[in-house]
Structures are given as structure tokens and as C-alpha cells.
């Protein structure tokens, strides 16, 4: 039944510090073409350190082997389906890596003269325009570095607009299905948070919302499609309820991969939103970042956007700092420019039709998975799925197996798990987002794996509970890690480490 993986050779590898030996070098520096300065003379003995205790000393070969070996212990999109719900783990085209490294872009200094920065500025302007078109919004800032950073920017913009009308208000409404970043953001922007219950279709309960909206409410933060992968069908009514009371609608665009070319937030009442360029527009997730959290706004909010803004003057681009109503900077310089280059390259490669087709395929793939595994797992809500489908572990929990166990067992079948135990409103959630990247073959392998695990839960739950069995590292004790945090290497701890020889060879472990 396991068709995707077999155990393979994984090299052991100590930490850099353990590989280190005095005098080893991996670098070359050119000969100094000016007189060498004695640091103690130049800086004073009190300002000069003798050495960096414990810092590695390794050769060039050591470095390449070290990181190459480490890389083989990592799962990645390049190895297969990576169905983390809400994360949109799609293929990262390599052309984007090439163009981001073009010398005139990669080596552009943010303070170099504008006359020598027109190319970079043109790229920023082109991406702003493309994202405004895709979202149906009026203006875009590319300064925020990630989604949560975009949220903070968007809520600060909301506050600034409301303050300009005389009252910044007190509360942000957040559906109980929202990403944790939403309430955390509201707090950072000086608002209190009120949760809104979802109804039995996984959508915002419009009546609860209506009761909650009053003159204290600054905005509703809504994810659409929401985190159960369901489109908020009442979104225009929801927006009207907020607008009637002078409040705004903030959209968390984490799930925009379900909408590009099909629906535009600007057309359904959204005032301000962020996009995750590392999700919808394929810039690499890189083990946790970098991202980019572009924020799109209506005409009303534009005057408050972070400074500086691009401006066309006399046939060329210039940075305009003269923005009396701006919320200020949210980041130094102009944003994660290298990420912006990649996102624009992705948009150019796809064009209008390609972007729309990606959306259709993403939704098709999620619905295919849903259909195939629905007989074995409890779908969280009956409502139609968009780009992701969310199940509950209810049936498996009856046999003592939880979503986290199923996830670990999925690893033995050669897949990265789905998002585990989120959203919080679904008991034991399995949140699956395949993206448009996958073909039928990989989807079938994945569904076969999940179906096989469902059978194992019935017949032999132990094998699921103790998973993974095929990986280099078996189940990791996260509880001890949190109880006694060791967050850096220290020479003293060397003795406490198991010597390399004691590590169990993979072949001796229980296979699946």
C-alpha cells in the first residue's frame, strides 16, 4: 500500500560546533590593499573582543557536506505534495530565483540615487498595479514583510481612517475560525478583541454579527474563503452590516488562492486586506520565510498608507515622503523587494488566464480529495469546499487515534502532513490544501495513504499511534523541549549527548 517511499540512506551529521577544530578555515579574503589597522589601537581595548568563544572553525568541504546532509532530513514541495492547509504550498518556479538574483536588482542599495533605481521602482509599481487589479482594490502597499505584518498595517490604517472621522473606536470582531494572527494583531493595534461564533455551516453567523456590531466596533477581520475552506456566502450582507455602523471590513487574504480571477474582494465590500505573496504568488516559503504581506485598500484609506509612496514625476519614479496622513513606516526601506520580484515574475508567467486557471485547479484538487476520503473521515461542514477541505478526527478518535497521530503516520507514506488541529472550531481538525500544483497521480497516492491509515486505525491503531516509523528521527518529545528549554549549543552539554555510534541505524527500526 505504501507506494511513494522506502527508507533510504541518511547520513549522520553532528552540529557545526562538534565538527569544528582549531585552525580550520572555509574562507578566503583578498589581500588588504591598505595598511592593516590594529583593532585595539583603533577602537580601544575596552571595545575590542579577543575571540568569539565556541564559534565554528570548519573547512569549505565541511560546510557543504554539513548543510547538504541536513537538507536530506527535510521534506519539501520539491519532494511531493505538501498539503498544509492555509499555507498554500505550491510549486516555486525556479525562474523566479534567477531573476531575483540579477545584479542590478540584487545589489541595488535602498539609498542609491533614484536615477539609478528606476528599474527596481518600476517593478514595485508594476506589482502594485497587478495586485490592485487582482483584488479589485484602489491602492497597494508592498512595505509589510509578511501576512501578520500586513494585518498590523491594515488595522493601523483602519484606526487612522476612523480617527480622522473623530473616533478610532475600541473593538475588532474576529470569527472563532480566524487565524491566531488576527486577534494578536488587533491587540498590537490597541484594540480589544471580540469573538464571533460560526454557524453550523462553518460560516459567520450573521445574526450574532448583527448583534455584536455597534459604534464601538472598528472592523471585522474576516478570512474568505474562511479557514474551513468555505466561502462566506453572506459576505455582501456582512459588509453592509459593518458599513451601516461606520465600521470597516478587513479581509485576511491567506486563502486568496481560491479567488484569483474568480472573485475580487474590492467587489464584495472589503475595505482593506492583505495578500501573502509567499502563498498565492508562489514565492518560496524557505523553511518559514521570507514572505511579503502586501496590503490593498480602498480609495478612502489610501492617504494613510505607510510612507514613502511611489510617485510618477517628470517621466520617472520618485519616492514621496510628503504624506501628512500616513500611519508612518512599518518597516525600514521599501519592503521585501526580492520577494516582490519573484511574485511579479509569477504573475507575468501566468497572465490573466493562467492565474484564473490556477484558481480553478486548486479548487478542483481540493474537491477531488474531499470526495475520495469523505467515506473514511468526517467532513467538518457540509458546505461546499473551495481550495481546501477540513475534516474532523471524530471517527478515528473513537479508536483512540487523533489528528496528530494520523499526521505522523502520513509521513511514513511519504507525505508532509496537513495542518493539524486548526481551525480550533473543528474538533481534531485535518486541514488539507493541495494547491493547483498537484496532478491526479500524486493526489491519488495521497488519498490512498489516508484511506489506508483509516483502515489501520480500525485494524491496528498502535502502528498509527507510534508513527512515524520510517523516518530518520522518530517521534520527537516536544513536551520535554518546552519543559527544559535548551535553545543553544554549549560545550558542556557535549558529554550528555549520545555518541554518534549509538544512533540506531534506520534499518533496525520498525518499518511500516
Amino acid at each position, binding site marked *: 500500500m505504501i507506494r511513494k517511499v522506502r527508507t533510504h540512506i541518511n547520513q549522520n551529521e553532528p552540529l557545526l560546533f562538534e565538527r569544528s577544530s582549531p585552525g580550520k578555515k572555509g574562507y578566503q579574503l583578498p589581500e588588504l590593499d591598505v595598511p592593516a589597522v590594529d583593532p585595539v589601537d583603533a577602537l580601544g581595548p575596552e571595545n575590542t573582543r579577543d575571540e568569539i568563544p565556541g*564559534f565554528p572553525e570548519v573547512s569549505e568541504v565541511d560546510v557543504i557536506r554539513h548543510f547538504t546532509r541536513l537538507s536530506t532530513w527535510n521534506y519539501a514541495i520539491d519532494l511531493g505534495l505538501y498539503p498544509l492547509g492555509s499555507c498554500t504550498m505550491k510549486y516555486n518556479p525556479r525562474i523566479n530565483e534567477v*531573476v531575483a538574483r*540579477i545584479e542590478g536588482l540584487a545589489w541595488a542599495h535602498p539609498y542609491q540615487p533614484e536615477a539609478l533605481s528606476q528599474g527596481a521602482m518600476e517593478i514595485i509599481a508594476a506589482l502594485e498595479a497587478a495586485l490592485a487589479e487582482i483584488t479589485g482594490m484602489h491602492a497597494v502597499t508592498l512595505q509589510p*514583510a509578511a501576512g501578520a505584518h500586513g494585518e498590523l498595517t491594515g488595522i493601523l490604517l483602519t484606526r487612522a481612517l476612523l480617527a480622522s472621522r473623530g473616533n478610532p473606536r475600541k473593538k475588532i470582531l474576529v470569527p472563532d475560525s480566524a487565524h491566531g494572527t488576527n486577534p494578536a494583531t488587533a491587540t498590537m493595534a490597541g484594540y480589544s478583541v471580540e469573538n464571533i461564533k460560526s454557524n453550523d455551516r462553518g460560516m459567520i453567523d450573521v445574526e450574532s454579527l448583527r448583534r455584536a456590531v455597534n459604534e464601538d466596533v472598528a472592523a471585522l477581520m474576516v478570512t474568505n474563503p474562511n479557514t474551513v475552506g468555505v466561502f462566506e456566502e453572506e459576505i455582501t450582507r456582512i459588509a453592509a452590516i459593518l458599513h451601516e455602523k461606520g465600521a470597516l471590513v478587513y479581509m485576511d487574504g491567506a486563502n486568496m488562492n481560491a479567488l484569483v480571477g474568480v472573485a475580487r474582494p474590492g467587489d464584495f465590500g472589503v475595505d482593506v486586506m492583505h495578500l501573502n505573496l509567499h502563498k498565492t504568488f508562489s514565492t518560496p516559503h*524557505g523553511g*518559514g520565510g521570507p514572505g511579503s504581506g502586501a496590503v490593498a485598500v480602498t480609495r478612502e484609506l489610501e492617504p494613510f498608507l505607510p510612507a514613502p509612496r511611489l510617485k510618477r514625476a517628470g517621466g520617472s519614479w520618485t519616492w514621496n515622503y510628503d504624506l501628512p496622513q500616513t500611519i508612518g513606516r*512599518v518597516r525600514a526601506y521599501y519592503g521585501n523587494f526580492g520577494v516582490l520580484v519573484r511574485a511579479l515574475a509569477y504573475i507575468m508567467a501566468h497572465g490573466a488566464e493562467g492565474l484564473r486557471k490556477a484558481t480553478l485547479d486548486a479548487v478542483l484538487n481540493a474537491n477531488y480529495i474531499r470526495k475520495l476520503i469523505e467515506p473514511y473521515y468526517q467532513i467538518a461542514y457540509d458546505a461546499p469546499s473551495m481550495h481546501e477541505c477540513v475534516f474532523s478526527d471524530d471517527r478515528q478518535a473513537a479508536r483512540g487515534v487523533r489528528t496528530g497521530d494520523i499526521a505522523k503516520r502520513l509521513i511514513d507514506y511519504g507525505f508532509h502532513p496537513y495542518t493539524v488541529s486548526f481551525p480550533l472550531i473543528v474538533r481534531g481538525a485535518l486541514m488539507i490544501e493541495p494547491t493547483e500544483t498537484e496532478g491526479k497521480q500524486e493526489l491519488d497516492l495521497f488519498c490512498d495513504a489516508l484511506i489506508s491509515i483509516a483502515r489501520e486505525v480500525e485494524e491496528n491503531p498502535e502502528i498509527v499511534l507510534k508513527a512515524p516509523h520510517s523516518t530518520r528521527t*522518530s517521534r520527537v518529545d516536544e513536551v520535554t523541549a518546552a519543559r527544559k528549554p535548551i535553545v543553544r549549543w554549549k560545550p558542556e552539554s557535549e558529554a550528555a549527548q549520545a555518541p554518534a555510534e549509538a544512533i540506531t541505524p534506520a534499518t533496525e*527500526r520498525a518499518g511500516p
Partner: protein
Amino acid sequence: MLDAIGVQAIEDLFRQLPPEVRFHGALNLPAGKSEYEIVDYFRARGAEGANGYASFLGAGVYNHYRPVLVDTVVSRGEFLTSYTPYQAEISQGILTSIFEFQTMVCQLTGMDAANASMYDGSTATPEAAMMAARITGRDRVLVARSVHPEYREVLRTYTQHQGIPVEEFAYDPGSGRIDADDLQRRLDDNTAAVIVQSPNFFGIVENIREAAAIAHKKGALLVDVFTEAVALGLIEPPSDADIVAGELQSFAISPSYGGPFAGVIATKQTYIRQMPGRLVGQTKDAQGNRAFCLTLATREQHIRREKATSNICTNQALIALMATVFMAVYGKEGLRELAVQNLSKARYLANRLPLRFRAPFFNEFVVSANGRSPEEINATLLGRKIIGGLPLGRYYPELDGCMLLCCTEMSKREHMDAVADAFGADSSK
């Protein structure tokens, strides 16, 4: 697949979207382009840049050589196309490298714990201020005017609605270091943090021990900011600070018109649970082998929601990996030698120019233009394909007529001579 789902067309999967919500037109974007056309477009944009120019700009973004191994490692799909290592069993590669990153940041800064990265130095700074406010239960923040001006702007944007008033204190106009008297005058019992930068925006090395002593006397924490990480290879580590918030762009991260970079926050063991951002910890797997995993997640937004230490989720992991590979390549001796080269080059040029401040500096320094405007000097240099320094008048009205110059290991002697000549044309030097 449509048959399996039981629909006729993919369009049927969007039936639940009300018609008024649907976008019926076609996006007004050009048709999809080939790889060749895309490369061509971006090459043309790159050619509008500063190809072939020597540069003496620093101010938070530095031109350091990027060892080839850095891109070799980060281009591996296993690193490039993975995500946050929530599933430790199949993420030991990135987890191990982050643990090494955290360790090396600690070794450089003299701190006990460092997080797995922040967006950049400018956002790490307000996060450090907020962290200090949580730790001390106080709310006021004092920031030196010699901290990067854009970092101070971001600090204001972040803190303005959190009830954290930010006040600036002066630098000494003679030395360029913080004005300790002004700091002492402004410190009170409600001050959570004193924020200084070293080397500061003028390139000058601050006395962190003294600044910490002043802050601690009033029960405030000292936050040390750095933008030029190469300096840490040579200058006394800021062990007396309570929180270090920095930018690692100097470690093989290309200037890239201002990002993506990698910020970091490091601190003492006592404050670790108040730190924002992801953290990797050491533990064991079921067979007793050493393993790593994300840890202390109860600080973070996905668990604590509105009570989290920060809203940060996505960070700069791949960029932090660049810095990790850089630190491994240079190592103990290399980083020091690199720092000495930077120091030597900066001295070589500075010795020929009218310095504005007298305290020791690392690889950046402020010079007065001797009656000419910095813009004039820069215009002369541009004619020789040299980008000069950053005119400071916009950020510091009192330093109008001064510019900030930076020399790194990439600065060539002939270009430094040309800069000196451009100043010398009308000056006594």
C-alpha cells in the same frame, strides 16, 4: 476527476458564490509570458540600476561579499521549498540549522537565547521595546537619536497605540556617542527600556556597559540594536544589555533594494518566555536520539491569540539560513579578519577626510563636506561611476552638510582615493 467529484465542469465548484460576488470579466493583465521574455524584462530593469558602480553607502545596508556556498545551500529545494518546521520528524534539516543559527547569534552577542529570526532589524527593535515593557511592567521607552532613523520611525508606528510613549535622547555632538547626561536626566521609574545602537547610525562604537549601568540604576532594561553584524566579530559583545535586536543583512544577504533581510532578537535566559518569534529547542526522539523541534510555542499567536507576545508568524528563515552558512564559512578567525579589513579600509579613507565625530568607529563615519554640499560631492563621484555617501541633513538637520560613508572589504583603494579627491578638490585636506 470531475466525474469522481460528480460535476460537469470546474465552474460548477463555484456555484455557491453569489452572482454579485463573482468577477465576470477578465483581469486586465498581459497574457502569460515565456521564461525568456521574463528574464529579458527583469534584465532590462536591472540594467536601469547601478551595475558597475562602486558604492560607499551603508546606513543599515552593507555591501559585503557573498561566499558562493551561501546560494549553493539555500538553492537546495529541501530548504527553499519547505515551510515552518511544525513536523519535527521530517524537518530536522531546517531545525538543526536554526539551532545552529540561534547558537551563533548567542556567541556573537553574549546572550543566552536568540529567536529563529524577525522580519528585519527595524521591526525587531519595536518588538524588543514591547518585550521590555512586558518584562518590567513599565511602559515608557527612551531611544537614542543615534539609532537608525528609519528604525525609530518603525518604533513609533508599532508602539503608538499600545500605550508605550517613545522619547528620544541626544547624542554627544563632539564624540558622536550617546549623551549619558541627557539619558540620565530623562530616565524615570516608569522607563521600561533604553534603546541604543552599536555601532550606531554614525558608525561609532558605543559603550554598552556604561549605558546598561545607567539604565539598570533606574530599573530599566537596555536594548542594544545593531545593523552592521560584521562588527560583532571584533567589538566587545553587548553582554551587559538585556535584549539585543539586530539585523544580519551583512552576513551574505544581498542589499536587494532593502529586503528580504533577517532580523533577530536575543536575550538573557530569564526573559526567554517573553521573547517574540519562533524558537528551536533541543530534545530527544522516541529512541533517545538528539532531535530538535519548535518550542515554547505558548508565547505565540497560534496558541495564545490576543494574549501572544507578538503577532509574528512567517519569519525570514531562508535568509537566516544564508547568515548561518556565512557564519560557518567565515568562522572564528574569518569573521575577525573580515572585521579587521573593514576597519582598516574605513580608517584609510577616514584619515584623509574631515571627520565630524571623534569617538572610535567601525566601518562607517560621518564627514563634513567642508563648505560644499554632500550632493555636490556625490554628483562629482557619480560622474566617475562611484556612489558616494548618504547626505544626513534629511535625517539630522544639525548635520546638514555632512554625509555618512561606509567602507567594506569590497571597497577598492582606487575608489577610496577618488572619494578623497572629490572632497579634496575644494578642501584643505
